[in-house]
């Protein structure tokens, strides 16, 4: 009998939970990073002002991407606002999966959004996702180690400068690696970095007829240079290192340089977590001597509204609040200017208070140096700097990334890795009908 009672109870509970949410509750899917969590904690202000309640679904980046793709592709309607990246936005907008943000009010000042960000988050001239924070990549280096080596880092270094500095700072006896860069396989992991290196060496993923170009001499030069850097001056096990692993190494004083997202600047200069907080300098991502494309990428975590939501107006109101100038001021007032989400608005960088943040100028310069519509030396048919904004990219980027990761692990030569990558990219693109 007790079994039966328990069963009734469980069923009743389930039924209660199946009843839908009330009309003015927004469900927001997002990733766990400092700026987003801060927004979550400040969002009670939004609820107080508008009466719109918020439910948060915070997931790991890859799970989030899979989860929102699946929901949006099936019109599941689970989310009213979702955090997506620069890669997904134009692809999803082209499929009518997102609501255009043309309806944002005038005082939102859409023209204030940094031009590079707006370009990457638009489709046919309309904004489809509002940047919450944006980032580029840059060189972070140890000023004390550079000084000890008798070197000075130029503000805009070349790859030769980087190689020289890496050689000078590498000190295997003291467990200091000259350079830490990404090696772990994934389209958003090692391929983000390798693609920017390739861009700066004059390489491109596809020619204007969508033929894969990984067999070009520029690719070989770029990949060989990347591999040599890691083999000679990189940390052990670099083939498994992504952002967080390199962050850890840098914070513990194990890296002379780290080239990665500009958002890392606030972590490595935070004395609570970083043992080298007082000895970090910043420089623009490198270029190859004589070429003008720099190896910096462009990325934004942005807020978008999935088509088919029942709460479009409320969702628009939320996006208006979370990506507004007023929100940046709210964060500054509560937590200081260094904690304001960077890289979204021009007015932030014109603010004299923000100009005092040590990495502000370099972040803006890096973002402005990136142009997603014109990422390579030779013309290309695609948009995107460290990615190619086509649906097939996630697959081909990850497969090619595995070849390059195997190269870093010493299992393949650069020639072999490129040959394999070229073959698999060609196959995939043919199968996709390009």
């Amino acid at each position: 009998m007790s079994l039966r009672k328990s069963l009734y109870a469980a069923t009743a509970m389930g039924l209660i939970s199946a009843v839908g949410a009330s009309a003015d509750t927004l469900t927001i899917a997002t990733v766990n990073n400092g700026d987003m969590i801060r927004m979550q904690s400040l969002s009670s202000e939004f609820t107080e002002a508008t009466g719109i309640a918020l439910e948060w679904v915070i997931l790991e980046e890859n799970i989030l991407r899979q989860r929102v793709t699946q929901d949006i592709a099936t019109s599941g309607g689970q989310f009213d606002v979702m955090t997506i990246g620069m890669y997904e936005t134009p692809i999803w907008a082209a499929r009518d999966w997102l609501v255009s943000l043309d309806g944002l009010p005038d005082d939102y000042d859409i023209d204030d959004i940094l031009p590079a960000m707006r370009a990457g988050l638009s489709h046919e001239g309309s904004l489809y996702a509002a940047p919450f924070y944006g980032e580029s990549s840059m060189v972070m280096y140890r000023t004390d180690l550079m000084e000890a080596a008798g070197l000075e880092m130029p503000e805009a270094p070349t790859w030769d400068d980087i190689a020289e500095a890496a050689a000078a700072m590498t000190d295997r006896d003291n467990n200091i690696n000259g350079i830490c860069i990404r090696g772990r396989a994934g389209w958003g992991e090692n391929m983000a970095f390798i693609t920017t290196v390739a861009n700066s060496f004059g390489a491109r993923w596809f020619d204007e007829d969508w033929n894969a170009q990984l067999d070009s001499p520029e690719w070989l030069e770029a990949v060989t240079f990347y591999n040599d850097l890691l083999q000679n001056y990189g940390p052990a096990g670099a083939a498994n290192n992504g952002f967080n692993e390199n962050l850890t190494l840098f914070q513990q004083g194990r890296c002379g340089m780290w080239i990665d997202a500009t958002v890392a600047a606030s972590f490595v200069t935070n004395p609570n977590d970083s043992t080298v907080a007082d000895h970090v300098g910043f420089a623009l991502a490198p270029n190859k001597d004589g070429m003008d494309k720099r190896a910096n990428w462009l990325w934004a975590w942005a807020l978008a509204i999935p088509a088919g939501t029942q709460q479009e107006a409320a969702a628009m109101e939320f996006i208006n609040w979370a990506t507004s100038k007023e929100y940046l001021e709210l964060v500054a007032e509560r937590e200081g200017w260094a904690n304001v989400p960077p890289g979204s608005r021009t007015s932030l960088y014109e603010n004299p208070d923000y100009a005092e943040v040590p990495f502000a100028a370099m972040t803006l310069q890096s973002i402005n140096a990136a142009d997603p519509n014109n990422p390579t030396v030779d013309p290309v048919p695609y948009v995107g700097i460290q990615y190619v904004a086509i649906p097939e990219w996630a697959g081909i980027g990850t497969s090619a990334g595995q070849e390059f990761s195997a190269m870093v692990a010493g299992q393949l030569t650069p020639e072999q890795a490129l040959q394999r990558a070229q073959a698999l990219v060609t196959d995939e693109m043919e199968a996709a009908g390009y």
Partner: protein
Amino acid sequence: MARSVTTQRKTLNTVIAWGIGLLIFFPILWTILTSFKTEAQAIADPPVWFFFDWTLENYRVVQERSNYSRFLWNSVIIAGGSTLLGMMVAIPAAWSMAFVPSTQTKNILLWMLSTKMLPAVGVLYPIYLIFIQLGLLDSRIGLTLVLMLINLPIMVWMLYTYFKEIPGEILEAARMDGAGLRQEILYVLTPMAIPGIASTMLLNIILAWNEAFWTLNLTAARAAPLTAFIASYSSPEGLFYAKLSAASTMAIAPILIIGWFSQKQLVRGLTFGAVK
């Protein structure tokens, strides 16, 4: 002489057993230790073991940021509900296979098990679409049903093995005394198979508690259980190990405690039938 050899061997066995036990327990121990460290200590190299400033900061942050009790309650309902619902189906199914087998029983058992060989992601979209149609997305009842169905083969198999050990004559005697089918299963078979049923239920609760594919893919805000709670503490950019460890410790604590108190029952149930 013989006695000293035995003692030596006993000591050796004990040491090996403890060694293996500690090795298996180590990741959990490390997670618990890390949950009391700061983020900087969590990634320190060389690692810090026991001598650091123990802090409850991570637990405070996790409590502040997430509604733990809601995730916990969802886990309890989903794991408990799917187990109870599963037993309602599995006990009669195992009874019929153990006591009135047909020529196809073996095949049916194998076929049931074969459903576990299909990767879950292969049926994600069909199930997702069915859930949209039925309005079951992000509902506890939907998840309870799915978890019940995916664990059902294991439940039936385990119960079938236990029931096979029970002499059919006892059930026959009950029938001779006028017991109907329901009475036979409820009042004769079930009490005799309590250890088996208990360990099947326990194993099922653990499996459902830890299930992290369907629980992440079919929920959003309302029905998300502790697996989603843990997933929310991993970060693409930034340090999170200490907070993630605190969240993991909070998520596994209930099941760890249940497991600790019921380990005798669990071991007895799992080895039931194996010793004969």
